[in-house]
């Protein structure tokens, strides 16, 4: 278990300072696939480097299984990193790269060799063991970097956008391979990405970061279905934002009145919900298109876009604003609607999410 408590990192002593991490607190469980997701420059790498020991936080604590990590130099932390640039040693072979950590730990040669062979098999690189790292492809380098970091059996593996340099197909393969490795080794993975889809498909839990702070932590479904705030809803997937008035809150259920005057029940934010104007997030595929009568919202169909797997409907709502719906396509069936039609938009009770302001 990694406990990160109130970690702040301010760069630049003299002159202008920059807060790369702002009071970040998170607990990562054993054997968890934990993802840090956020836009470029939000501090993901900085947080990994704090855990690995290459950056000293300005304040805060980092503990692994109760042991204070900040007291230890990088080479004493039972944490290994898969660097974004791989950082393979160019003067060593694939096998020597993988064995490096164990060699530094002064393990007996026989054990090093056995583990290296295991790792080579695990990442399917046995035939390449004797190659120089400059003589293998990008995807293979990535697997070597992974094997090198896994070989010493760290308690925690840090992965800094390890798949970002790969092409689409290889990336999909490696995503599956990473998941397999994680479940086979039982090591805690802390994975950095700015690709929301990658985060959703691979993670047990996701922390969404923005400008140095964690905005929301939760399972992929939690984050997707119930984003806590506008930034999270916007960053992950597509979302419709609706102005509404919060009438009352009962546990997780909130009663809201939409701009159209219709009332419905949606999900309340985790805390701090107050009656009054709020913003509501509704995913495009969670809403249904119907007739204007009796719908929650009504408007004019402005655009229909066919996407193969699904069709997007853009609705200009009465009283301003627009709403996008997404419907799965069936073979050889048209929606039966055309632009200019008057339509209604509805979503089931409990589907919308009131955002924290």
């Amino acid at each position, binding site marked *: 278990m990694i406990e990160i408590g109130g970690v702040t990192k301010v760069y630049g002593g003299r002159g202008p300072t920059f807060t790369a991490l702002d009071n970040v607190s998170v607990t990562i469980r054993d054997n968890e696939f934990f993802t840090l997701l956020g836009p470029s420059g939000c501090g993901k790498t900085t947080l990994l480097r704090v855990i*690995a*020991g*290459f950056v000293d936080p300005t304040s805060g604590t980092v503990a692994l299984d109760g042991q204070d990590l900040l007291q230890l*130099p*990088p*080479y*004493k932390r039972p*944490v*290994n*990193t898969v*660097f974004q*640039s791989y*950082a*393979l*040693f*160019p*003067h060593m072979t694939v096998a020597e790269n993988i064995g*490096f*950590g164990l060699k*530094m*730990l002064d393990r007996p040669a026989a054990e090093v060799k056995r583990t290296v062979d295991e790792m080579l098999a695990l990442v399917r690189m046995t035939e390449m063991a004797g190659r120089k790292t400059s003589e293998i492809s990008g995807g293979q380098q990535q697997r070597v970097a992974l094997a*090198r*970091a896994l070989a*010493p059996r760290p308690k925690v593996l840090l992965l800094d956008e390890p798949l970002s340099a790969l092409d689409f197909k290889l990336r999909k393969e490696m995503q599956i391979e990473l998941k397999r490795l994680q479940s086979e080794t039982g090591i805690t993975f802390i994975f950095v990405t700015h690709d929301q889809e990658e985060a959703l498909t691979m993670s047990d839990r996701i922390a969404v970061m923005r400008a140095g702070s964690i905005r929301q932590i939760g399972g992929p479904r939690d984050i997707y279905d119930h984003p806590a705030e506008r930034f999270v809803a916007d960053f992950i997937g597509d979302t419709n934002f609706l102005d509404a008035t919060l009438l009352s809150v009962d546990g997780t259920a909130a009663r809201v009145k939409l701009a159209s005057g219709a009332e419905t029940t949606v999900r309340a934010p985790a805390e701090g919900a107050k009656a009054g104007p709020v913003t509501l997030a509704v995913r495009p595929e969670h809403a249904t298109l119907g007739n204007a009568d009796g719908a929650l919202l009504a408007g004019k169909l402005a655009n229909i876009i066919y996407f193969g797997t699904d069709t997007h409907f853009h609705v200009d709502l009465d009283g301003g604003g627009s709403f996008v719906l997404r419907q799965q396509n069936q073979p050889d069936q048209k929606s039966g609607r055309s632009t200019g039609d008057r339509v209604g938009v509805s979503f089931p009770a409990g589907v919308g999410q009131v955002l924290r302001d």
Partner: protein
Amino acid sequence: MAKPFDIRRQTGFNAIAMACFVLLYLPIILLVIYSFNAGSSIAIWEGFSWRWYVSAWQNDQVQSATVRSLVLASCAAIFSTACAVPAALATTRQGSFKGHTFVFALINQPLMVPEIVTAVALLIVFAAVKVATGYTGFGYLILAHTAFCLPFAYMPIRARLQGMNLSLEQAGADLYGTPWRVFRHVTLPQLWPGILAGAMLAFVTSLDDVVITEFVKSAGQDTLPTYMLGQMRRVVTPEVNAISSALLAISVVMVMAFFFLSKTRK
């Protein structure tokens, strides 16, 4: 599309380039040609012969000066490189510390201060030390050469370190390598070309030096260049050409090796 500024199109460029080329290389070519002169003039060609090479080879003074020069250059190269490696590490790997620029300037001082000033300064200091200790040996020359060769050894090593990916060393530390072992197993193997290049540059610089050697040396400590300078004051024979040509050959081999090493293993 025409380039905004193409130096090759400027009037007179070719003429200037040719002139520079001729001025640089014609004398050297002549020097080498006349080292094979059968006669004893350095200006009148009298036919081909190895005579002056043989004569130089059999000259006791040349022999001892050659040995002295090579020993001196080797010592200077080894010691200055040994100092340059930690200096380069400190100036590239420690982040920017207070007085960083100052240290950099200090290391490169021999490049910026006129050599004659360094020579006189060393002469004065060593004279005082000589009086105090009575030691008049070879050590002064080694010390002086080590000092002024330092920037030549330092530059290629520093360049190599700057070109090296810092994340490799971090990866080493991440994989349980203590700072020393990371240096030994990650940094050093990649630094070798820079170290060799630095040592060779220092070697050639030391081999070539006249001014500082002339000031610092005690009696009977002639190196090849100072020996040749001494000869010039008397009768000039193509023997000097022969020695110069041999030195030239050594330098060319060294420089070629330097290029080769800095090109490969990138």
